């Protein structure tokens, strides 16, 4: 397991009376693509700005390779930031933009020239040296912002919603581009976004945040398949979140009907929340299902049909490539391993999550 590169210890931060981060602990390993994911106002950008040195935490320390950098100015830190709206220097050419950090460090002319060429090649914008930022498209400006940061050979690249201003197609292309860049550079990326799809696509580790608390840390698969609470389940993709009772190990009662599942270790008859992803629900003939319902809504989404099935007074969201017209009686079937059981919220963190819904 690679070493801890950054250790975030007990960080708290509030603006005026507004508590943005509350006693937050997190570590980031070397060469990791870590994404801070959450809705706006969850504290993810503030955490990034604290890492970059643009905000001081009220409490807590930031350790970088074991050294305390909490009070270090931004220009003394071995990390670089790619800002949300690129923040290019509009009065300088692309080459001057990229050379900015290197000139400050008094690197030689030939070194700077080599670096500019290398960086432009890396972001697929060779030949743009003498253009001005205003003459570039949003996607190109974003790549220049990345090039400008990486020529300084930072150990960590901080990215603050870098794709937020781009259109969908470009955003998807840039996601692959960023993964490729990260693999070529072999450095740590800390990425902030509110877009769950972006997070799932690119990250090694996702940190889901809400209201200043970490809700869950895990790989994209963990976060998607085994959300630890209703907030995470709801925020990452669409889902059916149902109140349920754990009858016994591997058997859960949802809306009065028993479903076999794979979860164990809950108390007998313990109230829980069950999460079922819309694509995990199989619609079958009424007599073959565990529960019977009627299709009430049908929308064609391209890859699949989105349907709402009313069963036991609950609107089940179902994604399926098979189409069932509105009014059809159907049976609902769910494979045991597709039911994710979560404890009911009880800790303060999870209440914060619930309150946000």
């Amino acid at each position, binding site marked *: 397991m690679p070493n801890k590169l950054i250790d975030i210890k007990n960080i708290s931060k509030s603006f005026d009376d507004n508590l943005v981060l509350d006693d937050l602990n997190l570590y980031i390993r070397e060469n990791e693509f870590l994404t801070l994911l959450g809705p706006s106002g969850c504290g993810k950008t503030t955490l990034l700005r604290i890492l*970059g*040195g*643009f905000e001081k935490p009220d409490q807590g320390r930031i350790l970088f390779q074991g050294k305390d950098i909490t009070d270090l*100015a*931004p*220009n003394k830190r071995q990390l*670089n*930031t790619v*800002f*949300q*709206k690129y*923040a*290019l*220097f*509009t*009065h*300088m050419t692309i080459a001057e933009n990229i050379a*900015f*950090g290197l000139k*400050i*460090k008094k690197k030689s002319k030939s070194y700077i020239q080599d670096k500019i060429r290398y960086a432009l090649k890396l972001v697929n914008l060779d030949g743009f040296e003498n253009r*001005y930022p205003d003459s570039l498209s949003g996607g190109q400006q974003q790549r220049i912002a990345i090039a*400008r*940061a990486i020529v*300084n050979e930072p150990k960590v690249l901080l990215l603050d919603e870098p794709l937020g201003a781009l259109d969908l197609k470009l955003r998807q292309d840039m996601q692959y581009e960023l993964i490729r860049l990260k693999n070529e550079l072999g450095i740590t990326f800390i990425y902030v976004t509110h877009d769950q799809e972006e997070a799932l696509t690119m990250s090694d580790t996702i940190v889901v945040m809400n209201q200043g608390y970490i809700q869950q840390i895990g790989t994209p698969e963990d976060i998607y398949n085994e959300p630890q609470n209703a907030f995470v389940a709801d925020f990452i993709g669409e889902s059916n979140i149902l109140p349920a009772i754990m009858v016994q190990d591997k058997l859960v009662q949802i809306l009065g009907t028993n479903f076999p599942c794979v979860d164990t270790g809950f108390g007998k008859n313990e109230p829980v929340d069950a999460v079922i992803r819309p694509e995990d629900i199989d619609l079958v003939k009424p007599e073959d299902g565990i529960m019977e319902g009627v299709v009430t809504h049908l929308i064609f989404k391209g890859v699949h049909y989105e349907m709402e099935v009313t069963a036991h007074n609950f609107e089940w969201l179902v994604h399926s490539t098979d189409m069932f017209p509105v009014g059809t009686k159907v049976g609902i079937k769910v494979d045991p391993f597709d039911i994710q059981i979560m404890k009911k919220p009880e800790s303060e963190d999870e209440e914060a999550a619930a309150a946000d819904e």
Partner: protein
Amino acid sequence: MNKRKLLAGPYLFWSVSFIIIPLFMVIYYGLTNDNGDFTLKNLAAMATPENLKALGLSLLLSVISTTVCLLLAYPLAMILTNMKVGKSSFIVLMFILPMWVNFLLRTLAWQNLLENNGVINTLLRFLNLPTIDIINTPYAIVLGMVYDFLPFMVLPIYNVLSKIDQNVISAARDLGANSFQTFLKIIFPLSLPGVISGITMVFVPSLTTFVISDLLGGSKVLLIGNVIDQTFTQGSDWHTGSGLSLVLTIFIVASMILVAKYDKEGKGAAF
């Protein structure tokens, strides 16, 4: 579309009657003599030793007062930019407040303050301190120009500075620049359009003023504005007065072109 164009009507009427026609009248008077014949003599009147001296002094005093305004205004604008909204709007108000008082009255007030038996010297004598005798000298004129025109320097610079994206400044710091390097390489170049419009708005009225020099310079200091004023009012010589005005206008236009050209080369983002 045509209805839209009608909206420009009132201004069009205004500018034709009060800007364009008078301008052509100045050109006409400036290029003719009493008999209505074409002549360049009126323009050449600028070349007399007295007039050249007045023009030179005008240029010198305008450059000095523009420089002083810039040195005072830039740091102030920076402080204002870094302040929280509530506080800064109060200070901006403090700055604009004097502008609401008529400019003649303000200049007259300075005359009263600076006079040999004025408020300041009376107070100084009362305290047994040496008096300051700057009334009717170029110093008093510069003081008056700076006092009257300073807000015109502060506002455009403040405007430009407050529009600089904070992330751009953060980015410079992030890339290793300390705060001085950030100012020199990022903030100042990005603020140049504001500086240039500030310079224009202070330099031009300073160069052409005759009221400030009249009130604070007495009759002892003649600026080119006073020369033109006297030619019209005391000499009743519209032809020479218009000729001198034309030369001065050419001076101003030339210096503005120079400034604008520099701005483009400096890529001051003045688009």
